[in-house]
């Protein structure tokens, strides 16, 4: 018996949330995709193809709202903002690109989006800037639904941006699973920092614990979920002696539509280049999984959302004005 540390700070959720490792994957995961032995793969170093793109998004609830249509129903909603963008890396330049900010007024079911009250309230002026919150409907009136709706808007914007970028990119590393991607054959790799589902049965997952930095597991195919994906685990940073053995491991995935050969190439590319983009622990509390371009992009995107207090005040002022 030993006590190990989960290295991410306590204010973040754990990066390692796998509840239980199944002894068997019940036919949803195929581990013999590459047709190689189940052991760590060390890709051959080679020149890095260029350019690379890292896509990410952030979101923020500006204020929660309750719509009152005098029927006594509780209709929940929110004013929310999100921003997506990318960092383009080419040779020795990393630069922010294509930063897009979206604003949404999320309305729970029951209230018509085209209602005049919403049209009046959704535009807020701060200084020289006019913020327009586009009305969208949430799937239900549960408290979590509105936030989920905002999250979906952000993820869709991320996916759209990643798809656009992938036309001229050697590889687009997108944040999170590829659930929102419509296209099936773009070189986009989903980077999953927080491991929620193991996908691998217990015997195969043991390899993940033993991976060294820059090594990956062989590809495995996930047929569970909306789309079929090839996936692999990659270690981007060595855990400290006190850390648990899955610290510093990412799961990555591409759509199977890309073809096995291309998937292997991207898996090898991720193994050779991603460890170079990791931050030391003092630079980023979620290191090494939160890659430096992504951490920096998140800060920039959060900055581009604008000052939350100013926006909240402006929304309050606008709603007050409209209610007069």
């Amino acid at each position, binding site marked *: 018996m030993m006590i190990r540390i989960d290295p991410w700070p306590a204010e973040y959720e754990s990066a390692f949330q796998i509840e239980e490792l199944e002894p068997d994957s019940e036919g949803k995961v195929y581990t013999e995709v590459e047709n190689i032995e189940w052991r760590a793969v060390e890709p051959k170093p080679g020149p890095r193809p260029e350019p690379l793109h890292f896509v990410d998004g952030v979101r923020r609830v500006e204020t929660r709202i309750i719509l009152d249509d005098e029927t006594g129903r509780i209709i929940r909603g929110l004013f929310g903002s999100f921003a997506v963008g990318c960092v383009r890396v080419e040779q*020795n330049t*990393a*630069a922010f690109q294509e930063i897009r900010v979206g604003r949404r007024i999320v309305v729970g079911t029951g209230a018509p989006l085209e209602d005049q009250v919403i049209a009046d309230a959704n535009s807020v002026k701060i200084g020289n800037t006019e913020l327009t919150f586009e009305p969208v409907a949430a799937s239900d009136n549960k408290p979590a639904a509105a936030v989920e709706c905002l999250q979906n808007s952000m993820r869709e914007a991320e996916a759209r941006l990643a798809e656009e970028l992938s036309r001229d990119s050697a590889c687009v590393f997108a944040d999170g699973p590829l659930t929102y991607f419509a296209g099936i054959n773009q070189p986009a790799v989903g980077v999953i920092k927080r491991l929620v589902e193991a996908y691998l049965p217990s015997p195969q997952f043991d390899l993940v614990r033993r991976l060294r930095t820059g090594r990956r597991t062989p590809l495995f195919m996930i047929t569970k979920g909306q789309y079929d994906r090839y996936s692999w685990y990659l270690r981007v940073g060595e855990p400290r002696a006190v850390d648990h053995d899955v610290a510093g491991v990412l799961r990555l995935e591409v759509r199977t539509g890309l073809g096995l050969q291309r998937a292997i190439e991207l898996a090898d590319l991720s193994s050779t280049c991603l460890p170079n*983009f990791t931050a030391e622990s003092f630079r980023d509390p979620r290191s090494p999984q939160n890659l*430096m*371009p992504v951490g920096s992009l998140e800060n920039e995107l959060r900055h581009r959302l604008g000052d939350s207090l100013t926006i909240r005040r402006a929304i309050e002022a606008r709603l007050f004005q409209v209610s007069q």
Partner: protein
Amino acid sequence: MSTEIGKVLGTQDAEPLEFWIAVSPDQVVQLDDVVFVTRELPNGGRVSLYGIVDILKARHEGARFDSDVFLSEQGIFPLGKSIIAHVSVTRVEPEIFVPPLPGQSVFRAAGADRHQALFFDSMNTKFPLGLSRDGEVVYGNLEFLDGSRGAHINISGISGVATKTSYATFLLYGLFQSGILEEQATNTRAIIFNVKGEDLLFLDKPNARRKPETSEAYAKLGLTPNAFSSVAIFAPVKAREEVLLPDTGSRQEGVTAFCWTIEEFCRERYLRFLFAEADDETSHLSAVIDRVEAALALEADLSPYETFDHLVDFICLSVTHWVSAAQGTIAAFERRLRAASFRIGHLIRGRVSESDRHRIDWKKKQVTVVDIHNLHDRAKRFVVGVVLRRMFEDKEKTGTARPLVFIVLDELNKYAPRDGWSPIKEVLLDISERGRSLGVILIGAQQTASEVERRVVGNCAFRVVGRLDLAEASRDEYRFLTAASRGRAGILKPGSVIIHQPEIPTPLLVQFPFPSWATRVSEVEKSGGGDPFDGF
């Protein structure tokens, strides 16, 4: 045309008298750039704020650690870059003191805007001070020099970078040449004391090593590069020589040897200037000197004294008859008199044929150079004291301020030191305090203003700083320098000075062209191969 260089930024406070601008990435902004921003007021009014860039900063945006720069350069970590400039406001027009608003466009001032920013538009008569870093003319307001609203220039700077006297002579050249003195230019006079080297002995010779860009700079300033047109050069007579020859090394021709006669010395009461050492214990002594001076002035026949030593002997013999003082005081007087006589005696002669020819006549030519660099410190003080008092008395007699007389005196700390009293310090104090109304303008220079009498420096309207020792620059005397210009005073190159003048609240960095007159023999233009017998 004024061009936009950036916008007032909002991450730091903008104030009516200072603000920061974010510089556009495609613009180059350097220290001393003259800028302006115009703000429309809600009441329909407009306020223009003019100013000078005095601090520039560049930094990474989004970096939290110093080492982030390496990651950024490796292309791992994206970071923004920003350049910001601090503007010290020089002028607000009209005088409504409001801050500029973040986001407002800031322009680099050119033409009329620049003149407005630096008050050149409101100067009735202006004289060239030099060129700014961007090659534009910087003017001074003549009213603050000619006595109408102020007078005097003080120049500080370490020695050896040829800045202080070069700049003083450049200013004179500009004043005489630019035509702003109008019809009085011909009657305006300047007395320049050459205290070091012989570099001021060639003011009347064009500089043969003048470069084309020097001529361009002069042309920009509205001046024709040439030598001073009307120059008289005086040098002390050689000691231990009967014949009155100037004691100079590199130039003999056209140099007049100067000396005084014993007659003059006694009648004009010059004795006090032999005791010109700054001294606190002179109260008893000065009583003795006063009485001896009076007695000498009244002495009926001075013809028996052929040399100054004879006169000194006579004074020592007679002093007890003229004055009743303690034995110690008399002894001190004698001791000092003999010491002075050893150093100065050769300048005061018994019989001088054509004595008028050897008198320093500052009215004859426009510029009178008095060379004292070869003299002992005591003798230097004597000459400066006598010449200045003579000139000052002449001006007092004429009773009018015009035409002006400019006095250029380096090593002011020797003549008007901060501590102690001396007759020369009194003359200089007189000039700095009353000279303004009498039309006597002092262009004084010294290495360290902190060693010069406060009132002499304090009365100067124009304060000029060349390269300064940084410890010196932090003294109170240089409070007119901003923190940025103080730092820069330590690295100024020859030919650059920082000037503070009354109307402009910010000191300006000014460059002045290389002298167009020779400053040493090797620079003198050889007379161009004409017939050597032309004059016959």
